[in-house]
């Protein structure tokens, strides 16, 4: 036999020295959008997991989604149903989801009803039946649904020790047979402590639904996952025709950061306003347009996006109050064509108005749209509508979530214009009732003023983080060109911010728009 070369003999030893025998745990995808990120990469192979929560929060759907995403003829799955939902009913309802693949039934995924064994016999018989089926099929995935009913039966007839022994045996057996397993069960949060099932489990995914007023919000928490760093906290989930979708509470924090460098100034589409902004809004800034109803906030947002499109910068408009068609038609009335860029894929108008949204879901939608069109500009019209679209449960965290969302998007180099409606009090000039100025780099305030028997409009740049700006209060009108800041620069009035200014100029100034006559 040929003697191996010295180098070949020593190579494995070097490898051992540099990698001290650490096992590499493969992670399987869950098939649930957003969940792999929350789990820290997916479900660890051969792990013994629990999917727990209150009824109706999506436990069975999650288990099915994982199986349909992973099970194949070569790596089959066994799904044991107990006293909860019989397999027949599961098949009836689960086939409504798009992930359901009928061709996998009885080949890649086999359903086995354990109800009679659980009802008529003891835990030992249940274990033996599971073991018999596992040995027969050699599955890569095993689900017991609902495991809670097994436990309940055991606790009424046997001791806690017997129960613990059963769980321990089952976990050892399934892992020994190289199966990644899931016990699905209805539990309340108080049961987690001192429960042998939870102690033995490698992973614990907790699903819940919280009702507040008329809204219901579903949430997911990875309470335990051995061997990998999952994202802590409560994450929103939604169940649609595609099954579960998860939205990590840290969604967006991983958005690719823009390269540092000198930032450009972007035109907002209104030359005089650009001058007031010191040459335009800085790329990657968050600009807030605050003003009462009818002052042209949406018009300004439209002009901002249209100007970007003119300059080859794709955009997204997120609308919460107005329908996309109405938005497009109103832009056309200003001579701004939003239809063609939508057709060309340079613009998307997202209409987000279900009344139980979470900020994370909205952010997911925005991020996907931004990626799709390669957006550089984003208009959120309006923050009030955005807040109204959220489930009440999420409104308490609106500012925090908005902060995170805007920070992530602007960090990626997206320039954001948000509108917010504020009431004119005629005694003060609030920027918004949210106290959200900390969210924005720049603020433009629009307001009504009464001048010479007319309700006219003025605007002022209140804040610009990135440089100097005009301090002038300028009058503007909304014409068939949109918002137009008018000349001359008005200086003949004082106390404009109160809404009831005093004319301090010597000569009466002609009205920018004709006054009503008899």
């Amino acid at each position, binding site marked *: 036999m040929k003697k191996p070369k010295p180098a070949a003999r020593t190579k494995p030893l070097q490898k051992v020295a540099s990698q001290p025998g650490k096992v590499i745990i493969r992670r399987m995808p869950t098939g649930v959008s957003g969940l792999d990120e929350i789990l820290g990469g997916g479900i660890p192979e051969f792990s013994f997991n629990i999917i727990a929560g209150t009824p109706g929060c999506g436990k069975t759907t999650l288990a099915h989604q994982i199986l349909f995403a992973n099970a194949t003829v070569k790596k089959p799955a066994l799904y044991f149903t107990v006293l909860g939902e019989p*397999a*027949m*009913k599961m*098949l009836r309802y689960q*086939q409504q989801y798009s992930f359901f693949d*009928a061709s996998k039934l009885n080949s890649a995924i*086999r359903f086995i*009803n354990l*109800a*009679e064994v659980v009802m008529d016999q003891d835990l030992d018989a249940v274990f033996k039946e599971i073991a018999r089926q596992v040995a027969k099929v050699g599955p890569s995935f095993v689900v017991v649904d609902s495991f809670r009913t097994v436990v309940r039966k055991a606790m009424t007839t046997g001791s806690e020790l017997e129960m613990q022994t059963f769980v321990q045996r089952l976990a050892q057996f399934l892992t020994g047979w190289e199966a990644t397993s899931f016990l699905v069960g209805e539990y309340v949060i108080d049961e987690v402590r001192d429960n042998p099932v939870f102690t033995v489990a490698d992973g614990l995914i907790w699903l819940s639904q919280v009702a507040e007023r008329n809204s219901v919000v579903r949430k997911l928490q990875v309470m335990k996952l051995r061997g990998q760093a999952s994202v802590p906290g409560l994450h929103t989930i939604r169940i649609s025709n595609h099954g579960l979708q998860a939205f990590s509470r840290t969604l967006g924090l991983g958005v690719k950061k823009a390269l540092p460098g000198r930032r450009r100034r972007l035109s907002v589409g209104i030359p005089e306003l650009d001058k007031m902004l010191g040459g335009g809004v800085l790329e990657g800034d968050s600009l807030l347009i605050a003003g009462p109803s009818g002052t042209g906030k949406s018009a300004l947002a439209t002009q901002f996006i249209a100007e970007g499109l003119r300059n080859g910068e794709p955009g997204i408009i997120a609308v919460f109050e107005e329908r996309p068609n109405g938005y497009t038609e109103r832009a056309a009335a200003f001579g701004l064509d939003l239809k063609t860029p939508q057709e060309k894929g340079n613009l998307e108008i997202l209409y987000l108005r279900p009344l139980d949204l979470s900020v994370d879901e909205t952010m997911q939608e925005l991020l996907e749209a931004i990626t799709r069109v390669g957006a550089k500009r984003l208009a959120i019209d309006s923050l009030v509508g955005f807040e109204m679209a959220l489930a009440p449960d999420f409104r308490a965290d609106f500012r925090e979530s908005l902060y995170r969302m805007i920070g992530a998007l602007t960090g990626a180099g997206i320039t954001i214009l948000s509108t917010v409606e504020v009431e004119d009090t005629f005694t003060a000039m609030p920027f918004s009732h949210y106290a959200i100025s900390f969210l924005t780099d720049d603020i433009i305030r629009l307001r009504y003023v009464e001048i010479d028997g007319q309700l006219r409009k003025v605007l002022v740049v209140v804040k610009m983080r990135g440089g100097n700006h005009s301090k002038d209060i300028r009058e503007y009108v909304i014409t068939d060109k949109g918002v137009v800041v008018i000349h001359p620069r008005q200086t003949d009035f004082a106390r404009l911010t109160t809404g009831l200014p005093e004319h301090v100029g010597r000569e009466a100034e002609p009205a920018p728009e004709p006054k009503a006559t008899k």
Partner: protein
Amino acid sequence: MSRVTPQIRELAERLIAFEAKDNEAARRMHPAVFHVCERLRPHLATLMGQGGFRAVLARALAVASAEIPWLAALQVKDDGSLEGWEKPEAPVKPKDLAESGAVLVAHLLGLLVAFIGDNLTLHLVRDVWPKLSLENLNSTKGDHP
């Protein structure tokens, strides 16, 4: 309202014919419909438990009995098998037995279609009778399967 469409009926007839041909010796003891139900029983019991299968078969039998009165003499045992073939009130001709069997099987399949849909029902039938031809089942009028 009957759930039995022409396609389901045709499928039931094919199953009866298949079992009659495939199982001639056993048919002397029991009619083909018995063997169709027996072949389905373990597969469906795996999915819905014996109790579930018993309930569905009993329902199919009740509906079928309204069309074929002598079927009321049959009973579903605890294990989900059919009994009572031996003692119908009046003798049943072999042709009528096949016809009655097709009615019962058609109602059983009709219930399955109502619960789990056409695709899964056909999938199940294919699993149980891999050699059965399901071709041209869709050629007749109707929505199912």
